[in-house]
């Protein structure tokens, strides 16, 4: 943070965030973070492979292909094959990263993911690119907004949705080094970089990016930035102080952090570029319903499909823009139980 004396800056400082309210944030697609991370993972361990289904440029596998030609495999348009073959490679000691659009892998390959990666416990990593409506002009066929749901329901699976390009690189390296089947979800468009090289990252450990006592916004992916902007506006315009939790690991979710946020704030807003049904926010609701029920409002796509359009325009239209998050926070705030009056 550039300056500041209030409590909110402490969280941002502890997390080594950039001054996200400043004017000149770097705008980098999260997929670039994957591209950089997987090259480095391939250098650290020669068993790391890159396998692609005819989308090497757009999934950002091109650099890996150049840096590690002997570790790169091109399979053509065959997403089920991508998973099954990677399972075979993992069975003989390889660490395959398989990349396609999230809509096709795991979208098309779900049964192979369940049987070959998860039930069979193989060390395969899926890079799900072009997730969310922010794919934009390609339209609904290519906008994966159900992928978190279908992946988080599978036993043994790790599901990570990093908040920016820098964190995506860290997540790629962390998942490469951690044994087990995993899904890394990221997007196509440029998005604000709020973390730095110094920001810690640990799979399964949620991060408080902003402190607040009124409502906790629990977000993942590129919408974490929108959550931070909404929190700032709410503080300035309505005096509502929001905590913002970067809940990057959807599975295994940091239950303690979720319960702590609910206890501290008494109301939760979840934010994700995904169907509200069965996504990250639904997992938050499952945890809190069982452990500490508090009012929850969800920001996400509301049981509908996307369409072609400008990414920012689609984020707004489907109710995931800053104003939508603000409105959800106000609703959650109103639903909080009033303090006991004796």
């Amino acid at each position, binding site marked *: 943070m550039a300056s500041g004396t209030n409590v909110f800056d402490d969280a941002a400082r502890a997390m080594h965030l950039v001054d996200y309210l400043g004017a000149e944030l770097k705008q980098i697609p999260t997929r670039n973070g994957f591209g950089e991370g997987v090259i480095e993972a391939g250098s650290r361990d020669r068993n790391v492979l890159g396998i692609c289904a005819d989308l090497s440029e757009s999934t950002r596998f091109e650099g890996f292909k150049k840096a590690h030609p002997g570790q790169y495999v091109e399979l053509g348009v065959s997403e089920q*094959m991508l998973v099954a*073959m990677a*399972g075979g490679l993992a*069975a003989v*000691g*390889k660490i395959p990263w398989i990349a396609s659009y999230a809509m096709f892998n795991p979208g098309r390959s779900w049964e192979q993911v369940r049987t*070959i990666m998860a*039930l*069979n416990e193989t060390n395969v990593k899926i890079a799900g690119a072009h997730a969310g409506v922010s794919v934009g002009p390609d339209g609904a066929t290519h906008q994966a907004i159900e992928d978190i749901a279908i992946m988080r329901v599978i036993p043994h699976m790790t599901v990570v949705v990093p908040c920016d390009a820098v964190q995506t690189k860290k997540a790629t390296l962390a998942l490469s080094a951690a044994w087990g089947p995993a899904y890394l979800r990221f997007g196509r468009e440029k998005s604000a970089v709020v973390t730095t090289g110094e920001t810690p990252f640990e799979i399964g450990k949620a991060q408080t990016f902003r402190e607040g006592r009124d409502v906790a916004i629990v977000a993942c992916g590129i919408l974490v930035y929108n959550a931070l902007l909404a929190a700032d506006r709410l503080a300035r315009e309505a005096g509502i102080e929001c905590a913002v939790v970067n809940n990057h690991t959807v599975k295994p979710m940091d239950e303690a952090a979720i319960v702590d946020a609910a206890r501290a704030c008494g109301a939760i807003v979840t934010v994700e570029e995904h169907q509200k049904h069965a996504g990250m926010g639904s997992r938050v609701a499952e945890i809190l319903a069982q452990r500490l029920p508090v009012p929850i409002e969800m920001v996400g796509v509301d049981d509908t499909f996307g369409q072609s359009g400008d990414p920012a325009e689609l984020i707004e239209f489907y109710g995931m823009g800053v104003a939508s998050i603000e409105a959800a926070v106000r609703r959650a705030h109103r639903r909080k139980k009033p303090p006991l009056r004796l």
Partner: protein
Amino acid sequence: MQPLTPAGLTELKLKANDVRQGIIRALLAAGSGHSAGPLDMSDVFTALYGYLMRHDPAKPDWPQRDRLILSCGHIAPVRYSAMANFGYFPLDELLTLRKFGTRLQGHPERVRLPAVETTSGPLGEGLAQAVGMALGAKMDGKDFRLWVVTSDAEHQCGLHWEAVLTGAKFALDNVTAIVDRNFIQIDGSTEDVMPLEPLVEKYRAFNWEVFECDGNDIAAFIETAARATQTVGKPQVIVAHTVPGKGVSYMEGDYTWHGKAPNAQQAEEALRELTAARERIASDG
């Protein structure tokens, strides 16, 4: 590979008979499961475990072992019976088939029984995984072979043909696939349900080296497999023509035995037939 002697062949025929008897006992104990496919593949599995494969039952995790990938997981009883009869685990364990807590799941799970190599049941996925293992072996300069047993009906799955394309692209001559060509599937004849013919020409068109033989003739299968594995630069497929239910007269050729187990009386009859057949093999070779 040692040459197959007449005595060795008789030994294998006896083993195949043992494998069939193990299948019947396991299915009877389980009360459900598949009969026709396991019985018709007993000769192939015996040839693989008893002659063709490099393996050691005492070391199921031996890195240099040949891998036998059973793609059509529903014929697991033949694999389990072959494994038990070749020393991977006690014969009695076959009676736990499909029961709570067993290592012998209704469809095989590698995590529960490591030597089964993959978890299978959903069809069309075995060759794809074998192709991955084969490419990994090539990358690391390892010389083990991938033996892949597939059903004919799973050739109706798109993923299987993705694997066929991929095997050819990477010239995986360390892959030998075997098709259990028994012409049956749950709903009837493969050629009525969804025709596969001309199957041999399909594989040739996909740049595989193709072999055919009688899959219920151990000597013929071994001779064919030995030739197939000499192939350089191409994956191979052996279309093994089999009689569903082979060895049990009332099951032979009857597709309704694809997915059911014998009752006590039927099992008794099957075991009586197989015991008589075993005596004939022992006396006549």
